[in-house]
């Protein structure tokens, strides 16, 4: 007690600040940092969840480097990112931009766009999986066949399957992005637009010179947020391909699904941890890179 009394005001403030921070810090250390560190340690070990952990040096990483499936999965993960992020941002911006101008049934429309985001991913993935089935149960193929065209193998194809799975994933995420974009649009002071109108500037110039630059913080947030979610895609892929997870021939398998299979069906925890460390590094690099590229100069 005497020690505390002798502290200066600012030192006391520090003590209190840390006092209040102690709980979240402790929480993060136990729930986040310790497991993360442990996963990194585990990536240098061999463990099947039952026996003792044995040191394996860089074996897991060497195995990963030499695993053709890993490189395919690595490519798939980036295809999800490179197709998914721009597509979802452009579509959601276009919708938000026009929805912002609509007055008639505005709330209803907004709610309708937001609805898929509230729906359980698993339920949605299964419904889409049935949409994609061949005749006689697939909605899309029944329609195509009734027009007299050849059926399309949506999921049972090494080329069509990934875009087919990506589509509902983009659709499901739109609602959230639209809401964020609309909040960003509303935050732009109307005086800028009024000034532009008085100057007689075209809509296109307003969009390019006022709206987009002022939306930058929103765009940065959404790019990082949606990139992370596409890099971590799992639910849609797993549920739409449960019988042949990530198939056919690993053409839809993202990194998270590979980690899941290695850990919980092959019980090769060390190898799975090594893959997790790689995923963690990718997420970190991509996020930092995006923040750097889109920083305020």
């Amino acid at each position: 007690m005497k020690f505390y009394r002798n502290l200066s005001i600012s030192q006391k403030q520090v003590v209190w600040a840390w006092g209040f921070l102690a709980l979240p810090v402790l929480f993060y250390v136990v729930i986040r940092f310790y497991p993360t560190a442990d996963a990194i340690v585990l990536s240098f070990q061999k463990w099947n969840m039952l026996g003792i952990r044995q040191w394996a040096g860089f074996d897991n990483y060497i195995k990963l480097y030499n695993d053709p499936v890993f490189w395919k999965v690595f490519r798939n993960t980036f295809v999800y990112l490179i197709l998914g992020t721009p597509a979802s941002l452009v579509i959601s911006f276009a919708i938000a931009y026009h929805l912002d101008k609509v007055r008639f049934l505005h709330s209803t429309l907004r709610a309708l766009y937001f609805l898929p985001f509230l729906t359980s991913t698993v339920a949605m993935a299964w419904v889409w999986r049935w949409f994609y089935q061949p005749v006689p149960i697939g909605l899309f193929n029944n329609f195509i066949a009734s027009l007299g065209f050849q059926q399309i193998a949506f999921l049972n194809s090494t080329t069509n399957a990934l875009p087919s799975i990506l589509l509902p994933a983009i659709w499901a995420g739109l609602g959230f992005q639209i809401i964020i974009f609309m909040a960003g649009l509303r935050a732009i002071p109307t005086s800028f637009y009024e000034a532009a109108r008085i100057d007689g500037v075209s809509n296109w110039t307003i969009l390019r010179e006022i709206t987009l630059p002022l939306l930058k913080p929103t765009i940065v947030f959404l790019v990082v947020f949606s990139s992370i979610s596409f890099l971590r895609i799992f639910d849609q892929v797993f549920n739409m391909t449960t019988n042949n997870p990530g198939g056919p021939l690993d053409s839809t398998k993202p990194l998270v699904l590979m980690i899941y299979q290695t850990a919980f069906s092959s019980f090769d925890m060390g190898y799975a941890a090594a893959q997790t460390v790689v995923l963690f590094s990718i997420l970190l690099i991509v996020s930092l890179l995006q923040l750097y590229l889109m920083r305020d100069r």
Partner: protein
Amino acid sequence: MKAIRTLTLAATTSLAAMLSAGAVSAVEIEYWQYIFDARITAMDKLIANFEAANPGITVKQSTFPYADYRTKVAAAIPAGEGPDVVQLFYGWLNDYVQAELIQPLPEATFPAARIEAEFFPMVQAMKIDGKYMALPTAVRSLALFYNTKLFAEAGVTAPPATLAEMVEIAQKITKKDGAGNITVEGITSGMTAQDHQWFREVLLRQFGAVPYTDDYRTVTYNTPEGVAALEFYTSLEQTLGVTSSTFMDEPQAAFKAGRAGMHIDGSFRIGALKDTRGLEWGVAELPAGPDGTQSNYASYWVNAITTKAQGEKYDAAVKFMDYITSDEAMQIWLDTVGELPAKPSAALTEANIADPVFGPFIKGLGYGHATIFADESGQRQVLVDAVSRIFLQGQSAADSLAAAAAAEQALLDSYYAK
């Protein structure tokens, strides 16, 4: 205030009474299995019977979701907690033994010679270094389900006895729309379901190939006979057009919906089909191969005594193991869960063999093989991919099988290199 004090006193007294009652009561052992309703009900019945016959021993059953099961077992036993008797999949035995989670069954109660005389031969996979580590109560095998309505429509009177007959019937049953899309399948197919087991232990053997060496550590199916088996399997879809692996999402769904004439599946499917309204079906033994060879795939869940069970708990656990591997327990399991008894003496009773549903499965046990998997889903994936390469990338059966054999051997090598 007084009321609270009285209440506290009452609570303390009853708690103390409970604790002391626990101390004087007899030995309690714990049994763990994963959540599967019918099995929990069956085990409750077995426990009730066992406790009635052995006053002084109580058995507590704990169940966990399948996904958490392995982690819980692994965490509990080394900590001296958890089960004294545990259920595990036969394919996990090596992992459990290496991790020292289970101990050998005592030779006095479970002599190896007696086990080998009494149980179906595939149970011998549970012997490690001459000692039996675990025993099943029930086993599962494959059989051919057939839709009697579709059979009658096509004028077929009896289920196929051979592969040739199977193909012939499938051709009669298959229906297609104007564009050539299948609307009713002759037979279901899909390596993702049970076909990989059918291919591995049945078709390969019927075409004269041997899938693995006896210890299942070396792949031996990459031979002309193996290629012939794979060609037969893929011809059903590619040239004969009597099946489509993507039809109605899952083979069992197509059969359940009455849109498939035949379907190869395990005895565990019986329960789901029994409750399907409007579906009329029968069961037959798997069709024999071109030279008459019959084969089957059998799998099972086993029970084992954990290393946690010591002293009087160990003795109680041995008694419990003895009971749950008895003929009586097996019949209860068959009646409740629909899984087949692991001993011919319990399985091959006249009533069971004559049973139109269980009969064909039970006959299959006599010539069944239990694959010793290192990584069942990984090894399944190898065959799934082999067929995908043929269907989607136009690879030849010979090349595809060679690649599959190499991939599976790599899996086995990395598993046993531990």
